[in-house]
């Protein structure tokens, strides 16, 4: 447990840096970039969890995150905006948002649980586009313009005035999510899920309910994604259908792939890379507003050259340094083809 590995040194170093960040970088960095990195990382982590331990690459994580965000928006605003304007206490809004998002996630998961690989990718993409169109069309809960003036709880206060508070809330949430995901992966449920990922037919013949495990994993990942959605609406104060459109869906996929689809840490690495590129590319004259062309090209390059993402590059560098070689079972989900059924 106490062995010092390069991974651990980097991890603890990153955590320490994250804790002292508000004292060493500008408040713009903390408020605009790092907080965004943390909640985007949480959503991407839910995607990576499903892909790394369940073998399911889900494009519905942003839809679930948006559902949580829209519920919070509808529940906690009080007049002056679209939606239901229920005017609840923000904490009740959080509970309702997460509960509804998990409920929808379980339904989504149950419907998609019999599919794997690209079928799963397609079905979850369908969910995502339908969620976007639904919030765009159903004016009772949002409509095209979305919901504005969503308040954070009193303890956090006005986000513009107290950027560090939301940052630390997001940091604690991200850290807890990371620990929770790691813990769940080591429980009997997590181990069974990995069995289902590697050989569903064998797991079924051993008596495990494969579809139920996939469904519960999806519901659990929805729980994680909805935490990201709550932080997003607190941070942004506003949510509209464009926050969860195809572009946003693909952004989170890009983050997960750039980070690396098989290590949870990759979520935040990818998110940091994403927000920095997003922020600074605008200042480069020949890129300017064409951020998505740039990020698309980087995404393409990563998928073509290093399917393990940035974390994969790091691991390859460590291998080269120590002269060891990785076992083939550690290949990324992208490279592993569909599971052949040996019937």
């Amino acid at each position, binding site marked *: 447990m106490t062995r010092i590995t390069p991974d651990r040194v980097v991890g603890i170093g990153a955590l320490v840096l994250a804790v002292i960040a508000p004292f060493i970088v500008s408040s713009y960095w903390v408020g605009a970039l790092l907080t965004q990195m943390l909640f985007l990382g949480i959503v991407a982590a839910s995607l990576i969890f499903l892909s790394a331990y369940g073998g399911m*690459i889900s494009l519905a994580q942003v839809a679930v995150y948006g559902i949580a965000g829209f519920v919070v928006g509808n529940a906690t605003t009080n007049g002056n905006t679209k939606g239901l304007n229920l005017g609840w206490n923000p904490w009740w809004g959080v509970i309702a948002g997460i509960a509804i998002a998990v409920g929808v996630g379980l*339904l989504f998961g149950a*419907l*998609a649980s*019999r*599919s794997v*690989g*690209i*079928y799963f*990718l*397609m*079905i979850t*993409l*369908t*969910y995502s*586009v*339908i969620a*976007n*169109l*639904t919030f765009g*069309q*159903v*004016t009772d809960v949002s409509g095209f313009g979305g919901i504005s003036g969503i308040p954070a709880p009193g303890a956090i206060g006005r986000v513009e005035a107290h950027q560090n508070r939301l940052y630390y809330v997001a940091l604690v949430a991200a850290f807890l999510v990371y620990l929770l995901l790691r813990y769940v992966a080591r429980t009997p449920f997590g181990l069974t899920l990995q069995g289902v990922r590697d050989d569903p037919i064998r797991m079924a013949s051993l008596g495990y309910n494969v579809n139920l495990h996939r469904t519960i994993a999806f519901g659990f990942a929805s729980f994680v994604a909805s935490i990201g959605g709550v932080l997003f609406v607190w941070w942004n104060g506003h949510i509209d259908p464009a926050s969860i*459109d*195809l*572009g946003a869906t*693909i952004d989170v*996929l*890009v983050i997960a*792939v750039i980070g690396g689809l098989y290590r949870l840490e990759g979520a935040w690495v990818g998110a940091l890379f994403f927000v920095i590129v997003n922020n600074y590319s605008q200042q480069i004259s020949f890129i300017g*507003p*064409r*951020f*998505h*062309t740039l*990020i*698309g*090209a980087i*995404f*393409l390059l990563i*998928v*073509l050259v290093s*399917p393990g993402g940035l974390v994969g590059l790091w691991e390859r560098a460590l291998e080269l340094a120590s002269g060891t070689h990785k076992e083939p079972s550690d290949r990324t*989900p*992208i*490279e592993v*083809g*569909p599971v052949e059924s040996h019937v």
Partner: protein
Amino acid sequence: MAVDRPPAISNRARSLALRRRVLLVIGWTLLAILVIVPLLWVLFLAPTTGKWATAFGSAVHDPKDFLITVLNGVTAAALYFVVASGFTLIFGLMRVVNMAHGALFLFGGYVALKLQRGMVGEGGSFGLTSAQVNLTHWIIPAIVGTVVVAAMGLAMQQVFLRWNQGQELRQALITIAISIILADQMLAHFGGVAEDIAWPRNIDTFVNLRVQGILYTETRLVILGIALAIGILLWLWLKRTRTGMVIRAGVDDRAMVSALGINIQLTFAIAFAVGSALAGLGGVIGGSFASLAPGLDANWLLYSLVVVIIGGMGSLGGAAIGSLLLGLTSNFSAAYLPSTYTYYSIIFTFMLVAIILAVRPLGLFGRPA
């Protein structure tokens, strides 16, 4: 001596079987309700007044608008079929989910739009009207748009997809990356304002169908005609020609076809070009029928996905049935929901997908890969 005896059925197994039967009964009942209630509503129950008032009332009350809704559904399905048949052709043969299909659709539309404007002129502030456009001004842009997109799809397949055959998820991610770049570049070059291609003046009129005195948009019937022609041509191509035979064999067993000495790479290239061409042609028709704007690539990718999820991946007949179900569902839910709730119609698209997935995870005509 061992005697063959039927194995004793344990109580546990019996209760599991019973539970399974109960679940099946509940499932079928739910399904029946979900199908029968909407049917009854549309045919007999939909009112024209009161809290639940619909725009037209029931089919018995207003057969004319019922027939028009059917026609709208079928003609919308025709366009879905043109686009989705290309998607399913590519998937069926190569197991490539072309996530850039929606972007190719939009690109085909924009190429035709710019060419038409180049031939005729920019038109007024709302673009060209059909009075300014003759048949040639529509057909030539349509052909060019289709061919350009076919070439683009072919290039995409040769450069990015050919060398990682079989890595399905990686290929899907590659096409997603290409769709991001394409969509962003189209936004940069063609702007963010919705524009449409003008129909030629010869067909932009109404036809008297001589049923219930319906005057119906001729362009919608033209779309239906084009889709039927494409469906028949694709069917003949797949069933009656040598290339089609190789494609069908490739769908069933790629390795065996290759081992027989057939150049499967050439077949892949042809299928990818044809599949992309259909996206491009769909874009031209869709751009004339509705409009072209950033973000519509997502809608058309959604339609293609829904059609093939319903119909089953790689099946032409499935694409036709899937398109019909999607077209009818979306048009009927928009026309027959109570007027104050019509914007909920998108939910019905989701319900359609959900019901099909719950009953047949591989789609109506899907077969295991």
